[in-house]
């Protein structure tokens, strides 16, 4: 069932005294689709041309050096939630226990929310982020209460590259001020209307805007949302 590459990896892992459990998690990361070679090459230009390719570099070294495999997994974001020193590489910690503990791999992926909403309990173990990567084309998914992946995919279909997930596209955009993460957050209007300077309007809204009663959309009253938030 495993290919040659995997057998070699497992052998390598054993020779480096990592457990087979860990080796299978490495494999899970490898095949999950979380690795984005373009992102990796751009973020770490020094590794381009080294060894047997970028994915190989990531699996052999990048994981252990806490390098980000792509826009969907931020080691810094993840480690910030761990809140204690861990000797485990961030992404392996995430796959081993962080996902189950509800830690998020990036700021727009709410693991607990996603699991409750989209993953049926079929007795198997699912890593929420990897589930998303496998399913985003087939089902209507929200990765976060404020990111409607399917709606986003439909709206920005002409500009999202074929192999890129909507969330990865949103997270890797240098400037999200023209992108609507859900139908009720009009980023461009939000920035202009309140004269806000930010490349990340959604983040601004989540951190400050909603608390200040700002409206996310010309048709949605910020006042109403404050009432809804308070009522909760």
């Amino acid at each position, binding site marked *: 069932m495993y290919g040659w590459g995997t057998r070699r990896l497992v052998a390598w892992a054993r020779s480096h005294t990592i457990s087979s459990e860990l080796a299978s998690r490495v494999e899970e990361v490898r095949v999950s689709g979380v690795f984005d070679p373009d992102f990796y090459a751009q973020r770490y230009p020094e590794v381009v041309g080294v060894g047997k390719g970028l994915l190989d570099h990531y699996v052999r070294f990048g994981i252990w050096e806490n390098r980000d495999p792509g826009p969907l997994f931020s080691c810094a974001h993840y480690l*910030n*939630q761990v*809140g*204690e020193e861990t000797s485990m590489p961030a992404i392996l910690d995430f796959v081993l226990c962080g996902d189950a*503990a*509800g830690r998020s791999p990036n700021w727009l992926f*709410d693991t*607990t*929310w996603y699991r*409750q909403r989209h993953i049926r309990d079929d007795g198997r173990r699912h890593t929420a982020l990897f589930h998303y990567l496998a399913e985003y084309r087939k089902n209507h998914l*929200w990765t*976060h*209460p*404020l990111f*409607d992946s399917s*709606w986003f995919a439909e*709206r*920005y279909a002409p500009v999202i590259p074929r192999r890129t997930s909507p969330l990865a596209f949103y997270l890797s955009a240098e400037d999200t001020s023209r992108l*609507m993460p*859900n*139908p*009720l*957050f*009009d980023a*461009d*209007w939000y920035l*202009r209307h309140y004269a806000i300077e930010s490349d990340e309007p959604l983040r601004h*809204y*989540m951190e400050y805007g*909603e*608390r200040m009663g700002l409206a*996310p*959309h*010309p*048709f*949605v*009253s910020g*006042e*109403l*949302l*404050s*009432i*809804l*938030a*308070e009522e*909760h």
Partner: protein
Amino acid sequence: MRIFFTSVARNYLPKVRVLAASLKEQHPDVHFCVALVDDPSGTVVVSGDVIDEILGPDDFGKSDFAAWIFGHTLVEACTAVKPTVAELLLARDGVETVTYLDPDIEVFGRFDALFDAHEEHAIVLTPHQVRSEAERLWAVGNERSSLRHGTYNLGFFSVADTDAARAFLSWWAERMLEYCLDDIGGGLFTDQKWIDLAPALFDDVYILRDPGYNVATWNLAARRIGRDHLGRLTAEGSGLVFVHFSGFDSGAHHQELARHRTNNPVFVELSEAYAEKTLPVAAGEDDGAWSFGEFADGTPIPLSARRRWRLDPEMARRFDDPFASGPQTFQALVSGRGSTGVSPPAGLRQSGLARLLHDPSARQLGLAPGYELDALMREANRDLSPINGSDALAWPTVAKQLRGYLDPRLPTVAHLTLLGGGTGKHVDDLIAVTVGDINGLRVAHTLHEGNAYIEIRAPRVVGSPVVMIPLEHAQGAVLAALQALGVSFVHVHHRFGLESVLREIVRAFAGAYVITLHDYAFIAPEPHLSGADGRWVGEIGPGTWSVLQALGAERYHGIGAARMTSHDEWHEVLLGARAVIAPSRDCAERYRRSVPELDPLIEPHWETGHRIDRSDPLRPRRPLGTDQVASDPVRVIIGGSFCLWKGQQVVVDVARLADHFQIEMEFFVLANRPEGEQVWPRNIRFLGPYDETNLGQLVALAAPTVAWFPSQALETYCYALSELLRLRRPVVASDLGALTERLTPIDGCRLVPHDADERSWLRHLISASAEADLAFDAAPVEGVPFYPQGYLELVHAANIVSLTAHCEPEDADIERANEPVPWRWFGAERAVVRLGGHSHRLAVLDAISAEGTESETEIAVLSVESPEHYVVPDRQYWDALSRADADVTCILWYGNEHSEYFMVADPGLAIIGPRQCVIDSPTSIVPYAMVKYLWRNSMNGLRDVIEAFPHPERIVVFGTPPPKSESALRSGWAFEPLLGDLITSLGYTVESAPVGNQHMRVAAWDALQECLQETAEAAGAQFLAIPEGVQDPDGLLLPEYCAPDATHANATYGRLVVQALHALVRAHAV
């Protein structure tokens, strides 16, 4: 006594012992003290130890220590307390010097050079480097590091008992309270970077360049460590005093050491020995955990939480104890944990937007579930977003939606206005003060994605949609939208940018519009737009205000002809208004001069801060009097915006003059510094733009002694004047426009000719500044305020006239309408049940009139003389009902709310109610909660009526008849001339008018029944639902119970009501 101290958490105590022991070896007589930034209980034993004293958090003298330390990491906290502790120690009697040493220091020699230095100097510092680096490698590594982290290493500092040292510590401690941050990018590196300023700010700072002090990896390249002939350690030939093993645990020390290994072998030996000395102790004592590093439940505090706590003052206000765990704590907020402790969707818990999009409980409240809302929004977005095309003609649909949010029983008033400024404030205030009496709509220019629109919104109706009409479609469309919205009255505040649109609107609303004068634009043209014959030839564009205002002020000559002859059309608009409201006598007078027939109402604007309260928080804390002038600087606050026609040049000239004479004066401007290259006088301060929310703060910042309005053009009212009068400091103002009449009655204010020279203005400002606070008690507005009562009467009167214009009522009808209605009882004289209510009472009245009542339960209905005639209940009606003697009082409250809103409606409009139903491709969805919200005014009325009864528990509110089928409706319209006329006036025929789909109408009726039940029960009354069996499976009223009109039930239905009441009374009797 000489004191040495260090500052640590418990995990560094092993190192501290090495430090203390090595120090005591050289100086057995010094006092060694540890500032422990940690829980001091337990582990530390002082007696018989090299540590003489331990100071804990309680000794630091910081109020609210927990809140303070929560905002800091361990390193930040340990460094931030250094100056505070040094201050405390220095204050002790008999202390000569206080010296700080980092806990990771080991002492190898005596501090004699330091003590010698203190003979002459108060403050002693050691730099990271005392010699420039010879090699480029070290220059990059070490010198640049010093530039980033600070010139002086704060692993060591020393102060002697002098005033200079105390001043230095006091300054440093104050900075550390707020700015002890590891934020190199932001120019801060904990406590250390600040000390770069010390030699500049304080006298008596001595830089100790002895290479034996503070040897560390950052200066090792320039300090060769060796031994002299007696085996004593040296640094560059000087005696080695102490080594700073910085970064020992993080590995940085060893990394650096590797680079120096070959040329500094002795140092390597010292390092290895230090590692050995600290290890065994560490095994016994270092328990690792910082007591301020965790929340109460043991969860480590993430850095992001600390930063948020520190950066958001709101947090400290909301949470008393940042370390607390559990629901409703700061931890719950930052970790996204709910009260259950299970990690729930964080975003959803905190976000109203997320709730609107997903939350099932929001759905239970009746808000649209995500997907329907998506459909609605996607539709709307398609219209507004350039991504999906630029077809922006969705406004008719949105206008229909917006109308659904307005109360149909109130007149709807459209305010044509500008956004912002005094005009915008006036409109917003007016809409706010008339809520509940008027549906106020704001119609104004706006920009969206760079395109211009006319925006129509109901600012006080929560969640209501906004109609956006592209400017290029405004002609015709704005009027059509106002009509579609049911606007019955227009209030013109401004010419609105598009004069042709305004003309169109006022023609359509002839007799039903008023104008408030906020400027002179209706009478003052621009000279360059006057044609050869002196007549008006164009439209007003932006940037011409000053000219307009100046024209109004009659300061320009030679264009009188243009002023007098142009704008005849505007004169007609002015004269055609139901009323023209001028906010000041001056404004009214100037208009009268141009349009002699005009007779404006003179009514000052309504203001939230209308009355001046003596306890007003805006007042300066300290009243100023004449005796204080000599010592107090003159602080002038400039009222209003900062532009040429508000006297910008005058301010600049006067400020320059004050500066020239070296008069201690400051001028505070409530605006941003204007862009451009102009050099502004240095005594002008720009406080930034103001609005109602921040004005208090800005004014408090300025703490002015005098307010100044050097306006060069007319003010029609001037809100800024009201705001600054609240300061109760004297006002100096131009003798122009409304300023004159508003300030003349107030003693202590000065009116100065608007063209006075700088010296004259300066003299007035200085002398006004020295005067006592203003002493006037009443509001600056005379008489009874016009708003809101007088204004409402104006709107209602115009409304009645416009609605009845076609009927031309006889005088006798009007008189009759004013007579009291002769209410009387029908039915049993000794009634046990007495029934009253709106029009649905007639079905019951018909039933008891036809058949009488059953003997055991006497029923009477309160109505007018002719039972077939319906009159709306008035106050006397409800009084009579509440006073009547009855066991049970039954109220049939209104009950046509759903018909008013949803009888004539887009069939695609849908409400998802409690009933199962199938809706084919709805065009838009009205949230169920919003429908219930619509009935709130009606329900408030019911509540007031019930509360007026002496025994609410004896009241039964009866359900109202359900809606009818479409065919029954259409025949009902034909039967009722009033409804038929209404439908015709909307541009439909009885046959063609769109009927709201039955599911929606039934859902609206369901919502109404729910509201009736909730209101009745909340007020202590009972609710009785309609009789069973009167509805078809869809919920519509069966034909056999329908009266011939569109909304009411017949006597057969009335009989069922009577039977239900009998049953109730019988049950009650049992």
